[in-house]
C-alpha cells in the first residue's frame, strides 16, 4: 500500500488521519457504514452533508461510519494492477466488508463513478447480482429524487433529509442482523420506513410510444408513493461541531454553518428550491453557539453561512452583525456566499471584505424582464443597476453575472437582453465620477445551459439541441464586444448529458452500465468526459437520448418519479408551468402562500405570520 502511495499524486487523499477523524474500536461495532462520495477527496470533503451524516452515525456507540472517495485515475490504475480493493480512510477496510455502502448523489454526472467504485471495491455492480455476504448499497442526496436511472445498482434509496431516517435504518438493520434473516427480508423491513425506496419492489410498464403506462408495486412492504423525510425543527438536530479538518487544501476549506433549509423564492427552473421546502430556520441563539464551538474545534479562520439565498433568513443582518462581533477578536472571517445584493447587503459585504473586494455576483439568469417573469426570478434590471452603482462607489470593480441559455420560451430578444444588461453595467460604471470608482472594470458574463430537472415547474420542458445552444452561444460571443466584458460558456454536451440522466427512467440503467464498461468515469471532469462514448452506449442499448432531453412531455403523462412525493404537489408544479407560459410571477413564500403543498409538513415558513418580506 505504502508503495502505491509513493507513486501517486497527492497521496494524502488516501491516508485519513485528519484533525477530528473518528477513531473507534471495532470490537464494539455492530454496524459499519462506508460513506462514499463519488468524486475525489477535495470535492467530497467540501460537502456539508458528509460532515452531518458522519457526525450523526458516529455519535452512536454501536455504529462506525468511515469515509471513501473515488480514487484519482493514477491511484485506481495502481490499485487494479496490485489487486487492492477500494478501502475506507479511517481503518483501510475494503468496502465489501461493510454492512452498508452509502453513496451521496449530488450530481448526475457522478453516476459512472458509483459503478466504478463498487467494482473497485469487489461488490457486484448490479443489485440483482449481490448475495447474502455483500453489503447493502444505499443512496441519498438531491439526485435520489429521481432514482430510476441508477435503480439497478442501488439496493435502496433514502428520500429527503437524512438525520432521522438513517438512524431508523440502522436500528432496523440491527434487528434484522440479530434475527439472522435473509437479505430480502431486510429490504422488506427497510421499505416500510417512511422515505425509503427499494427499486426492485417496483415495476415500470410502458405504452407502445415509450411513455410510462403504470408504476406497479411488486411487494406489499413497499409504499405505492414514497414521501420525502424532513426535520420539522432544525434546532433539535445535532450538528457536527467536531468536524474533520482536511490536511489538503479542499474546495471549500472553511467551517460551514447551515442557517436554514429551503428557499422562499420559487424560481421555476430550480430543483433545490422545490425539493427542500418548506423553509425552516435555525434560531440565532443556536447558530451563535454552534458557530463558536465549530471554530473552537477546527481552528478554521473562516466561517461561511450556508443556505440558499442567505439574506432571506429572518433578521439576517442582526445575525451577521453578532457573528462578526463575536469573531473579530478571534481573527475569524465571515463569508457570505449566497447573498442577494442590495444596499443593506453591500454595507455588510463592505464590512467583511475590508481589504480586498472580491467580485460581486448577480444571478439574473435571463436577459429580459419577460423571461425573468417566466422563470419567476424576482430580480429586476433596476435592482441590479442600482446595486452596481452603489458597489462601484464603494470601490468594487469586478462584477459577475450568471445567466442560463435555452430557457423555455427564450428568443434572441432575450439573448440581446443579456448583452444590453452587461453594457448598461459598464455605462453605470463610467457614470460614477472617476475619483469615486476603482480603476479596471471587469464584467464577467457566464452563460450555462438550461437543464430541465424533475420536480420543477419546467420538468415537462424539452432542452434545446446542441446545435441551437451553440448558435445562441455564438450570438453572445459575437455581441458581447465591450472591452470590459468577458464571456464564459461551457461546451453544451455535458448539459445535454445532465438532462438525459436527470429526466431518465429505469431503461437508462443499461446505458449507464454500458458507458461505464466502455471507460466512462469522472464525467464531470472536462478532461475525462467522453460524449461520443455516451452516445455509443445509448445506441448499443437501444435508447434515443433525445427522448429524455428534448421531448416536450405531456402534462398528463406519468413521470418516472411520480411515485416519489416531495410534499410539493404535481398539481402545483403544473400550475406554475402554466403561469410561466403566461409570464405570470408567483410571490415568495413570505409574501403570500402559493399553496405548493409543503404545508402538510406542519412547520416552517408555512406557519409564519406573513406580510413582512
Amino acid at each position, binding site marked *: 500500500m*505504502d*508503495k502505491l*502511495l*509513493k507513486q501517486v499524486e497527492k*497521496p*494524502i487523499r488516501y*491516508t485519513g*488521519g*485528519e*484533525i477530528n*477523524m473518528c477513531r473507534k474500536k471495532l470490537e464494539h461495532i455492530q454496524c459499519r457504514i462506508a460513506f462514499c462520495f463519488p468524486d475525489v477527496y477535495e470535492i467530497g470533503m467540501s460537502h456539508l452533508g458528509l460532515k452531518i451524516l458522519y457526525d450523526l452515525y458516529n455519535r452512536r456507540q454501536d455504529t462506525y461510519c468511515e469515509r471513501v472517495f473515488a480514487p484519482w485515475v493514477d491511484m485506481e490504475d495502481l490499485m487494479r494492477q496490485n489487486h487492492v480493493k477500494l478501502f475506507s480512510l479511517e481503518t483501510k477496510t475494503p468496502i465489501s466488508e461493510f454492512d452498508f455502502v452509502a453513496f451521496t448523489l449530488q450530481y448526475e454526472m457522478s453516476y459512472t463513478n458509483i459503478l466504478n467504485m463498487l467494482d473497485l471495491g469487489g461488490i457486484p455492480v448490479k443489485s440483482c447480482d449481490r448475495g447474502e455476504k455483500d453489503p447493502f448499497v444505499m443512496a441519498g442526496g438531491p439526485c435520489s429524487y429521481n432514482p430510476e436511472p441508477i435503480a439497478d445498482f442501488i439496493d435502496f434509496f433514502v428520500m429527503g433529509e437524512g438525520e432521522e431516517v438513517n438512524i431508523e435504518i440502522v436500528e432496523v438493520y440491527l434487528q434484522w442482523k440479530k434475527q439472522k434473516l435473509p437479505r430480502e427480508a431486510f429490504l422488506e423491513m427497510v421499505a416500510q420506513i417512511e422515505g425509503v425506496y427499494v427499486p426492485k419492489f417496483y415495476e415500470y410498464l410502458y405504452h407502445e410510444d415509450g411513455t410510462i403506462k403504470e408504476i406497479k408495486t411488486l411487494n406489499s412492504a413497499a409504499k405505492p408513493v414514497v414521501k420525502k423525510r424532513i426535520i420539522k425543527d432544525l434546532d433539535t438536530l445535532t450538528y457536527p461541531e467536531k468536524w474533520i*479538518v482536511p*490536511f*489538503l*487544501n479542499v474546495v471549500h476549506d472553511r467551517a460551514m454553518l447551515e442557517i436554514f433549509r429551503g428557499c422562499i423564492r420559487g424560481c421555476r427552473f430550480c430543483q433545490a428550491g422545490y425539493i427542500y421546502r418548506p423553509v425552516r430556520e435555525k434560531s440565532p441563539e443556536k447558530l451563535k453557539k454552534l458557530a463558536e464551538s465549530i*471554530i*473552537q*474545534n*477546527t*481552528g*478554521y*479562520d473562516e466561517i461561511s453561512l450556508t443556505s440558499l439565498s442567505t439574506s432571506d433568513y429572518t433578521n439576517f443582518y442582526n445575525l451577521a452583525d453578532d457573528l462578526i462581533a463575536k469573531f473579530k477578536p*478571534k*481573527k475569524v472571517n465571515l463569508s457570505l456566499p449566497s447573498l442577494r445584493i442590495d444596499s443593506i447587503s453591500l454595507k455588510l459585504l463592505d464590512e467583511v471584505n*475590508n*481589504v480586498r473586494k472580491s467580485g460581486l455576483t448577480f444571478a439574473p439568469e435571463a436577459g429580459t424582464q419577460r423571461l425573468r417573469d417566466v422563470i419567476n426570478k424576482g430580480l429586476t434590471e433596476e435592482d441590479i443597476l442600482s446595486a452596481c452603482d452603489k458597489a462601484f462607489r464603494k470601490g468594487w470593480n469586478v462584477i459577475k453575472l450568471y445567466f442560463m441559455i435555452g430557457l423555455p420560451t427564450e428568443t434572441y430578444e432575450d439573448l440581446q437582453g443579456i448583452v444590453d444588461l452587461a453594457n448598461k453595467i459598464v455605462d453605470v460604471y463610467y457614470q460614477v465620477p472617476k475619483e469615486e470608482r476603482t480603476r479596471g472594470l471587469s464584467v464577467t458574463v457566464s452563460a450555462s445551459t438550461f437543464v430541465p430537472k424533475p420536480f420543477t415547474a419546467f420538468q415537462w420542458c424539452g432542452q434545446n439541441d446542441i446545435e441551437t445552444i451553440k448558435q445562441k452561444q455564438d450570438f453572445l460571443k459575437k455581441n458581447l464586444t465591450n472591452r470590459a466584458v468577458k464571456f464564459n460558456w461551457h461546451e453544451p454536451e455535458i448539459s445535454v448529458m445532465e438532462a438525459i440522466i436527470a429526466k431518465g427512467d429505469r431503461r437508462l440503467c443499461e446505458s449507464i452500465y454500458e458507458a461505464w464498461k466502455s471507460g466512462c468515469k469522472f464525467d464531470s471532469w472536462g478532461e475525462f468526459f467522453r460524449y461520443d462514448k455516451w452516445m455509443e452506449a445509448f445506441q448499443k442499448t437501444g435508447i434515443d437520448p433525445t427522448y429524455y432531453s428534448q421531448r416536450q412531455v405531456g402534462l398528463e403523462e406519468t413521470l418516472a418519479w411520480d411515485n416519489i412525493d416531495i410534499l410539493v404537489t404535481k398539481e402545483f408544479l403544473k400550475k406554475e408551468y402554466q403561469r410561466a407560459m403566461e409570464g405570470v410571477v408567483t410571490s415568495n413564500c413570505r409574501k403570500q402562500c402559493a399553496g405548493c403543498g409543503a404545508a402538510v409538513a406542519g412547520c416552517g415558513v408555512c406557519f409564519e405570520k406573513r406580510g413582512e418580506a
Partner: protein
Amino acid sequence: MIIRVKYQKKEEVKYVGHLDAMRTFTRCLKRTNIPVEYTKGFNPRIQISFALPLGVGVTSDLDYFDLALSEKMNIEMFVAELNSVLPVGFKIVGAEYVEDTKKSLMSLVKEAKYKLILDTKASVPEIDAWLKQSEIWFTKEAKEKHQSSEQINLKPMILDDKVMEENGKIAIYLHTTAGSANNLNPQNVIKALKESKIVIEDYEINREELILTKTA
C-alpha cells in the same frame, strides 16, 4: 517572545506536505488557549516559522519551528496543550524559549541526519561502494517546460555515511549539509541510486535529526 518547538512527524502523517503541515499546526494552535502572537495588518496570521521543509513521504524524529507568544507560558503546559489537539503522527517533544535574534530559523539550519531503508537485492558492499564514489551525479528534472534538466553532484553534500544490513533490508545512515544552501534532499539519493541501475523495490526515509547553528 519566541518559543522554539521540537516536533516529530511520524508514519501516519508522512504524506502531509510541508504547506499542509504548516497549516495544520496553525489550526491546531487556534484550537488551544496558547497565547500566540499575530502579524499586524489586515490579514493577521499566527507568527510561526519552520526550519526546513520535509519531503512528502519522509518521516522525522526531530524538527523545529519557532512561534511568537504574546506572553510567557509554562513549557510543560505548552507541550501538553498542543499535543492534546495535534493529529496522530505529529508530536511535540520539547520546547525552549530562545532569544529573538530576528534571524530566520531556516538560516540556522546547518546539517541533517537521515536514515534510508532500502528494499533491494543489492548488497551492503555494492551500496557502500556506490556511496564511496568520488562523485554522485543525479539528474534534476526540469519543473517547467522551458527549463532544461540539471546535473547535480550529491557527493559534496554528504559529510558522512554508513551502510549496514537491518532486518533483511539495507540501512543507509547519512550525515549531510542542509539549509537554504547546499541542501541534500534524501529523496534525490534514492533517485540517483535508481539512475545508476540499482533496483530499489521500496524505501523509507527518516530524518533523524536537524542540526542548528548555535545562536550566540
